[in-house]
C-alpha cells in the first residue's frame, strides 16, 4: 500500500520522464511565427499572473484557496492554440491558466480573485470558480472530476444542434479515479461526441503520487476500454500538446468521437499557494526545472526563427506589465454592494416574480 516516496524515487521520476516522455519541440505546420509568439506570450502571462497571485494571497488581497498553474503552462496554451472561436473548455481547481489560455481578461480575472464586483464572477466565485463564459471557458470547479460530464454535455449540444464546436475537458490525474470520469468518457465514446479529454498528469494529487493511486500509471491505456484513441504527450512541450489536441479536434469535428490525451509532466511547485510539501522530498524539484515549458518554448522560438531574444524580453516585460495593470485595476475596483448578495441565484424573471433579495 501507500509508502512515502524517497528522494531516490523522486529523482528516478526525472530520469523516467526524460527517457519515456520528453519529446523535442519541432515545427508544426499549423503554427506559424505569429501563433508561436502568441503562445509564448500567453504562457508567460500565466506564469506572471500566478506568481503574482501567490504574493497577493500572502498579502491577503486574495482570500480563500488558490492553486497555481505554474509549470503547466504548455498544456492549457498548447491545447487552446488548437481551438477555434466558439469551442469550449472546462477546467479544474487550477483554472487561471485555462482562463488566460482561452483568452480571458487578466483584469476581470484579478478582480475576481480579489472578490470585486468587476470580476468575472462578480466576486461570488474567486479563484476556485473563475469562469470566462464569454470566451467559452465554462468555469473552474472545486470538486475534482466534476467538470467531466459538463464537457460531455457541451459536446452533446454540438452534436444535437449540428454545431461545429468541440470541447476540451481539462482534468488532473487525480480526477481519473472519480466515478464521473469513467461515466463521462464512456458516454461520450458511446455517443461519438466531439469532446477531448485532456488529462494534466502532473503525477501528484496533493500528497498522493499517481502510481500509488492506481496500478497502471498510464492514463492513456484506459482509452482501450472505451474504444477511443488514447495518446500520451510531453506536457512540458506546448507544441506537442497542440498537435495532439489539433488531431483530436479534427477527428471530433469529423464525427469521430472523443480522444483521451494524457499530458504527462510533473508538479515541481506546491499543490496550492500555502503547500509546505511536507509529504514528499522536494530535493529533486529543482531538476525538473530543466524542462520548464516556458524556457523550452523561448528556446524553440529562437531556434525556429519565430522570434529573437529581444522580442522575448519585450514579451516578458509586456506580460509583467499586463499583470501589474490587472493588479492595479483589481485593487481599485469596488467591492460588490451587499444588496447584490442574491443576484444570480435564479434567472431575473424568477427572482422578480418571487421577490428574492428584496
Amino acid at each position, binding site marked *: 500500500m501507500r509508502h512515502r516516496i524517497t528522494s531516490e524515487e523522486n529523482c528516478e521520476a526525472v530520469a523516467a520522464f526524460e527517457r519515456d516522455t520528453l519529446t523535442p519541440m519541432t515545427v508544426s505546420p499549423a503554427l506559424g511565427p505569429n501563433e508561436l509568439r502568441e503562445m509564448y506570450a500567453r504562457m508567460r502571462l500565466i506564469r506572471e499572473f500566478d506568481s503574482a497571485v501567490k504574493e497577493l494571497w500572502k498579502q491577503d488581497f486574495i482570500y480563500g484557496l488558490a492553486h497555481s498553474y505554474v509549470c503547466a503552462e504548455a498544456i492549457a496554451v498548447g491545447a487552446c492554440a488548437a481551438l477555434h472561436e466558439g469551442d*469550449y473548455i*472546462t477546467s479544474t481547481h487550477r483554472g487561471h491558466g485555462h482562463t488566460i489560455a482561452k483568452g480571458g481578461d487578466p483584469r476581470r480575472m484579478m478582480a475576481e480573485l480579489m472578490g470585486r464586483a468587476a*470580476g*468575472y*464572477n*462578480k*466576486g*461570488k*466565485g474567486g479563484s476556485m*470558480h473563475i*469562469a470566462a*463564459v*464569454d470566451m467559452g471557458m*465554462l*468555469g473552474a*470547479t472545486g*470538486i475534482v472530476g*466534476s467538470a*467531466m*460530464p*459538463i*464537457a*460531455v*454535455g*457541451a*459536446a*452533446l*449540444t*454540438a*452534436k*444535437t*444542434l449540428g*454545431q461545429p464546436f468541440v*470541447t476540451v475537458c481539462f482534468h488532473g490525474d487525480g480526477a481519473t479515479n472519480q*466515478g*464521473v470520469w469513467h*461515466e*463521462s468518457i*464512456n*458516454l461520450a465514446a*458511446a*455517443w461519438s461526441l466531439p469532446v477531448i479529454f485532456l488529462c494534466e498528469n502532473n503525477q501528484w494529487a496533493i500528497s498522493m503520487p499517481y502510481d500509488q493511486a492506481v496500478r497502471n500509471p498510464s492514463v492513456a491505456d484506459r482509452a482501450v476500454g472505451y474504444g477511443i484513441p488514447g495518446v500520451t504527450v510531453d506536457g512540458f512541450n506546448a507544441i506537442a500538446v497542440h498537435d495532439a489536441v489539433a488531431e483530436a479536434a479534427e477527428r471530433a469535428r469529423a464525427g469521430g468521437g472523443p480522444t483521451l490525451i494524457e499530458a504527462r509532466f510533473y508538479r515541481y511547485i506546491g499543490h496550492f499557494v500555502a503547500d509546505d510539501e511536507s509529504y514528499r522530498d522536494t530535493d529533486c524539484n529543482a531538476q525538473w526545472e530543466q524542462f520548464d515549458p516556458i524556457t523550452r518554448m523561448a528556446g524553440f522560438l529562437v531556434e525556429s526563427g519565430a522570434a529573437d531574444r529581444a522580442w522575448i524580453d519585450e514579451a516578458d516585460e509586456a506580460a509583467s506589465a499586463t499583470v501589474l495593470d490587472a493588479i492595479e485595476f483589481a485593487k481599485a475596483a469596488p467591492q460588490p454592494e451587499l444588496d447584490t448578495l442574491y*443576484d*444570480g*441565484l*435564479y*434567472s431575473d*424573471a*424568477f427572482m422578480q*416574480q*418571487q421577490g428574492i433579495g428584496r
Partner: protein
Amino acid sequence: MTAGTPPPATGSPTRRMTVKRAINETLREEMQRDPTVIILGCDVGVRGNPFGVTKGLYEEFGAERVLDTPISEAAIVGSSLGAAATGLRPIAEILFSDWITIGMDQLVNQIAKIRYMFGGAISVPLVIRAPVGAGGGQAAQHSQSFENWFSAVPGLQIVMPSTPADVKGLLRTAIRSDDPVLFFEHKRGYEIKGEVPVAEYTIPFGVADVVREGTDVTVVALSIMRHKAMAAAEELAAGGVDCEVIDPRTVYPFDYDAVLASLAKTGRLVVVHEANRRSNIGGEIVSQVVERGFDLLKVQPRIVAGLDVPMPYNRALEALVIPDVDRIKQAVLAAVGQ
C-alpha cells in the same frame, strides 16, 4: 382517488386523461414547440420508459432527441448541465428518485450553484424528472421522497404535482424555466385521472391549489397525499368537521401565503406528506408557519408523515409506514380536540 381541480385560470373545454398521459403529451408538445428540448435517461427511448411515460417520443423525435443512456446517473445529470449551459433544454429522467443520490454532486454542487457562483453568467434550463414515493413492495431503495433535501439547496426549484391538470401546467412551466427544476412524479399516481384543459396553459410555481375550502382545519397535503387528504376531508365532513385542503404543488417556491390565509380562518394546521417524519418537509412547513403566523395558531400544528424507517418490503409493514386516510382523520380530529 379524486381528480383534482383544473387550474383556476382556465375555463376552457377539457379532456379526461391520466397523469401519465398528461406528462407524455406535455413532453411531446414542448418538444414539437422547441427543437432544443431533449430527453435523456435509462430506457426512455426505444422502451418508452418502464412506466410508459415517454412512449412514442423516440419514434416521433428520433434517437438524437430521445436518448437512451447507459446506467450512469452522475453523467446523465452532469451532462444535462453541460447541455443546458450551452443551448439545450434537457429533460433528464432518473427512473426512481432514490438514485438521484448517484448524481447528487452534479445536482447540488454544480447545477444548483453554477449560475450564482459564476456571477449569473450561465443559465441552467433543465428539468430532472424522477418518480418518488412508496407502495407496491419496492422496499428500501425504490420508495423514498427526497423533496426536503433539495428544498434546502438554494438554486433549485422543486415541483411535485399529482393531478393531470397540475402536471401538465407545471411540467410546461418547468420545461420553459431558465432555472433547474426537480419534477417529482409519484410512481403510484400515474393512473390518476382528471380533466385537463384543451387550450395550452401554464401554472406558475409557488401558487398552491386550494382543493377544498373549509373553516375548521387547514390540511396541507403534498403529492398524492392530496388525494388521501380529500378522502379524509369528505369523511370528516360527514362528521361535521370542515377541512380546507391545500395542495402546495411546488415545494420551492412554496405558497405560504395560501396556508396563512387559510389559517386565518381555521387556526388549525395538519401537514401531510409521505416522506418519513424526521427532518423533512413537514417540519419545514410547520416552522415557516410558526415564524410567519404563530398567533394564527389556536392549537399545535400536527404532521402526518411516513414513519422513520427504511421502507420495509412486507405488505402490512409497508402499509403501516405510509400515511393513510385514517391517520389523516385522526390528526384532524385531534386538532379540533376530538
